[in-house]
């Protein structure tokens, strides 16, 4: 008996990394999953992983920054599985530059994908989650949003924005029995944080990467599965009394301050 039997979940940005980890975990626990990503190839890979394991899955490629795409993604859940119980707003992007070198395009893309996308997807999903008698929405912040991070004015603004968005949504949707929480990951092993070798466009140079890991109290990066476990907990019945919470998954990198 899976912890999400009978549930339908939409997971944005689930073609790779953290989103893929969540999608696979959800399917293992019995949820029907809508995989969505801007890129069709990686999205199909996640779909195949779930199918091969005998899970229920549907695919919808789309851009979460566009109203019609957000609505199309939610409609996929309604058409394929008859409703939606859980939305995971995992889609996000970084485009770093120190302030005076950041272009308006870099600002707009990061704020739109990482913040407006959460709004557009949630707006499209909320009435349908309500129809099911309630459910859950997960947004993603980041320790960069909670602590600030040089070179990431765009990303830290967008990720901090997800905290404010989550708190307002949690208050507003509580009456519909929709729980809304936000997870702030720290250093997680993905293609964005892998060791950058010659010719790589993504990743972090070895010295910087080693220094970042040394600063984590647990002295190791997190894995996508660590996050998937937390999302599963929050979206399962075990998380039934949690709403409006900011949960750090960061190996102690940003310990909560008592003040």
């Amino acid at each position, binding site marked *: 008996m899976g912890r999400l039997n009978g549930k339908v979940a939409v997971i944005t940005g689930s073609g790779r990394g953290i989103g893929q980890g969540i999608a696979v975990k959800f399917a293992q626990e019995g949820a029907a999953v809508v995989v969505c990503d801007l890129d069709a190839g990686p999205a199909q890979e996640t779909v195949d992983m779930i199918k091969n394991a005998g899970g229920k899955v549907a695919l919808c490629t789309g851009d979460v920054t566009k109203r019609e795409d957000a609505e199309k993604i939610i409609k996929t859940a309604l058409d394929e599985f008859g409703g939606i119980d859980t939305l995971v707003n995992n889609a996000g992007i970084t485009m770093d530059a120190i302030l005076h070198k950041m272009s308006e395009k870099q600002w707009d893309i990061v704020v739109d994908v990482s913040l407006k996308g959460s709004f557009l997807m949630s707006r499209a999903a909320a009435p349908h989650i309500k129809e099911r008698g309630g459910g859950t929405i997960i947004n993603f912040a980041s320790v960069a949003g909670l602590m*600030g991070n040089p070179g990431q*004015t765009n990303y830290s603004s967008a990720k*901090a924005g*997800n905290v*404010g968005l989550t*708190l*307002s*949504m949690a208050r507003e949707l509580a009456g519909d029995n929709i729980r809304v929480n936000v997870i702030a990951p720290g250093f997680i092993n993905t293609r964005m944080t892998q060791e950058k070798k010659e010719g790589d466009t993504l990743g972090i140079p070895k010295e910087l990467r080693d220094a970042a890991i040394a600063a984590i109290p647990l002295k190791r990066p997190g894995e996508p599965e660590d996050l998937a476990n937390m999302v599963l907990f929050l979206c399962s019945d075990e998380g039934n009394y949690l709403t409006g919470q900011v949960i750090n998954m960061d190996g102690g990198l940003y310990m909560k301050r008592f003040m």
Partner: protein
Amino acid sequence: MKLKGKSAIIHGAGSSVGKAIALTLAREGADVLLNDTDADAVKAAGSEVEALGRKAVVTTEDPVARENADKIIKAALDAFGKVDIMVNCPDVSDDSKLVKMEDEQWDKVIDGNVKAVFHMYQAIAATVKAQASGKFVNLTSVAGIAGSAKQTNYSAAKAAIIGFTKTMAKEWNRFSANVNAVAMGVIDTSSKPALGKRQRGQYAAQSVRTATTSEGTPQDVANVVLFLVSDDSNYVTGQTIVVDGGLYV
């Protein structure tokens, strides 16, 4: 006087809080550039600054567009030759329930409260680097810290300002600049009420009031901003100071 010989830019100086900040800084000796798209309000505020014997420059640009932010900074440099202080207090709101909020409402509030501030910092970056000093304050709201129904756009924007403030504090630490935020609670703004009756009730129900039972005044906010732009706060940066009368304790 705490700010003798200093010059300041106040974006959003046409609002009652922005005006209180402009007058408080002027009383402490600062010359002030006041910017607001509400031309009548900002001109009136500028006249009050002049009446205190300080230089006042009034602009009516909307820094959501980068070139307008550049115009504001240039006007200040032309008039004062330097900028020691910048306070951003835009307050753009357009409330709706999540499911009824239009894309335009979202964009207007995110851009007016966050992108405009981003552009103000970009426009002044070269000056800060050259001066190797500066005091910066961004006004935000408890809506960004605690959430507020029907304000998903506003609370997202105001929370974003807190993340932005922390990143700027870290980026500009090497220029000896202090970057902080002030989060306002329910402030009595006679010209433009900050919150309707319904929202006031909502805040009251959500909170456990401690120190005060009345609304704050624009001067309460301006006093904290003054501290953060004066030398008294040289070792304070990256912080968000909550000015809410103990609303969220």
